[in-house]
């Protein structure tokens, strides 16, 4: 009772990174609160899930296994969570801010009348004083999220309602094994007790999901382009540099909106958060919402024709110049001086 529950996203029998990141965070929060970390797997043929998640510190895994749970549709998954949460009364529930999590979490929160905070960038435990009511709440979940296009950051709490629900974007939290020998309890849920046949009203006629080819999160070097790159054509230079350096190409929201790069490459609060060894920002002005997604990079190089671009303030090296001029020189030197 009153534990932390993480909803697991499962793709072809594999727990997605976002869920492992949430488990890592959930484990730390559970430690702080002195409660257990639980996870719920809803899907089909889930026998392999336990051994994937126990090393992340899961004490109890709920398994709801039925062929009809895949592919994902909202209502059956929502019903399992709603009924499980009513029964187990977790104090905190965490979901990924993915297409699935953002579809599922609000539905569940509405049914339970529990507060939900989307796209949190940090989760902490702390107290809250409601001065009007003269009440102090101990050990609430601080749900910290950017608001207003990323110009401010708000700390949200849910004093009265449980569970305190939050979604977190992929890559924002770090994924870390808690103890490779850690093991927990497996609790199989009786499907019929949690969902009704009426929940299966949406029929998936066709599904065409590509495996992700872009892996920004694990790239040691990211060459990222902004609106200042100017065109999709100029972006090719960035691909050349990334390929030479063994890295990946990222983009700012402005570049994605302008159609220079695909959405999956977007870095920032509404895209992916990255922490590479080296981040080369090309023609990126440095809107707050972009910087928030890359500020933990070990080293930042900014290439910009504007010597006063805001991003320069957080860069280790600032090269004042155009992409067309600078990038080919970098490629040339690197190719000549490495094997």
């Amino acid at each position, binding site marked *: 009772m009153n534990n932390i529950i993480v909803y697991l996203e499962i793709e072809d029998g594999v727990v997605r990174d976002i869920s492992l990141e949430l488990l890592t965070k959930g484990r730390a929060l559970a430690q702080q609160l002195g409660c257990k970390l639980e996870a719920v797997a809803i899907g089909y043929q889930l026998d392999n899930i336990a051994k994937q998640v126990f090393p992340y510190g899961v004490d109890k895994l709920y398994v709801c296994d039925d062929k009809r749970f895949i*592919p994902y*549709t*909202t209502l059956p998954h*929502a019903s399992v969570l709603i009924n499980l949460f009513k029964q187990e009364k977790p104090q905190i529930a965490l979901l990924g801010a993915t*297409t699935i999590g953002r*579809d599922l979490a*609000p*539905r569940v929160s*509405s049914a339970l*009348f*529990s*507060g*939900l905070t*989307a*796209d949190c960038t940090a989760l902490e435990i702390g107290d*809250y004083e409601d001065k009007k009511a003269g009440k102090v709440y101990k050990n609430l979940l601080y*749900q910290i999220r950017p608001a207003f*296009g990323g*110009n*401010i*950051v*708000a700390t*949200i709490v*849910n*004093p009265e309602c449980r569970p305190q629900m939050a979604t977190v974007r992929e890559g924002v939290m770090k994924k870390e094994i808690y103890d490779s020998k850690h093991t927990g309890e497996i609790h199989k849920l009786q499907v019929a007790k949690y969902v009704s046949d009426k929940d299966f*009203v*949406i*029929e998936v*006629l*066709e*599904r065409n*999901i*590509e*495996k*992700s080819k872009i892996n920004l999160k694990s790239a040691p*070097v990211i060459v990222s382009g902004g609106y200042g790159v100017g065109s999709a054509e100029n972006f090719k230079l960035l691909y050349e540099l990334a390929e030479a*350096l063994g890295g990946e190409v990222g983009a700012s929201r402005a570049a994605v909106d302008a159609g220079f790069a695909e*959405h*999956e490459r977007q870095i920032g609060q*509404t895209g992916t958060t990255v922490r590479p060894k*080296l981040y080369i920002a090309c023609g990126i002005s440095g809107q707050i919402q972009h910087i*928030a997604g890359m*500020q933990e990079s070990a080293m930042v*190089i*900014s290439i910009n024709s504007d010597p006063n671009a805001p991003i*320069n*303030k957080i*860069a*280790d*090296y*600032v*090269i*004042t*110049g155009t992409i067309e*001029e600078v990038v080919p*020189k970098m490629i040339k*030197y*690197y190719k000549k*001086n*490495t094997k």
Partner: protein
Amino acid sequence: MSFNIVVLAKQVPDTRNVGKDAMKADGTVNRAALPAIFNPEDLNALEQALRLKSKFEGSTVKVLTMGPVRAAEILRESLYRGADEGYLLSGREFAGSDTLATSYALTCAIRKFDKVDIILCGRQAIDGDTAQVGPQVAEKMGFPQITYAEDILEVTENSITVKRRLERGVEIVKGPLPILITVNGTAAPCRPRNAKLTMKYKHAATPSEKQEMGADYTDLYDTHPYLNLTEWGANDIEHDPRWLGLNGSPTKVKKIENIVFTVKESKRLTANDADIDSLMKELINNHTLG
């Protein structure tokens, strides 16, 4: 075959074009400095509604928004583009609503409509980016939901087929009516204003706006009933006061801060060969590269 369609829309500050004066010195948002616009994805939703209206004769499109008196601007905008009726939900009882209280208020308003077949709304609003109100309204109405819709492929008497745009692909799903659909920014853009409709509805106004205009205009609205935009306060909808506004909002804002980044001491380089070469050399030597 015809459908009763409701579009949920929101007037939002244009956070995409945040200028230097968007934030006040104390770190709060200077709403006055930001233009108020029709939430972009709600326009995509309106377009889907208008397409259904043109395809199925006799269908109606009602646009519902919750907000201050000024939010009637987006209702007129909807009429200019082809919607049939505009509804504004407004009043101090709704102030301080989080997504849950907002979805509750909208649901109470939707229940006043005779029969609703399809509710359309944008995937999310650009001021909060939460994407919560759509699914929460669906839950409260007891409707199934289809999120991230890019196109409505087929509608029959009792079913709808929708193409969804997901992170890494597309999905085609079929669901029963009534249903709520949230529409993605990748869907077709909204048609422009129609000149004739813009002339026709130029003076459309809510009761609050008419009051501001004074008595001179009373005749106009008596003789042209279609110019009356409906405005509902909390008293006009059947509701439980515990679920509205601040009371009905389980989430509370503990604090709001400006984002401050640690400023680094940066090394300034030019684009000449010597500078670039020495930088690359350093990166290779300290194993940042290779």
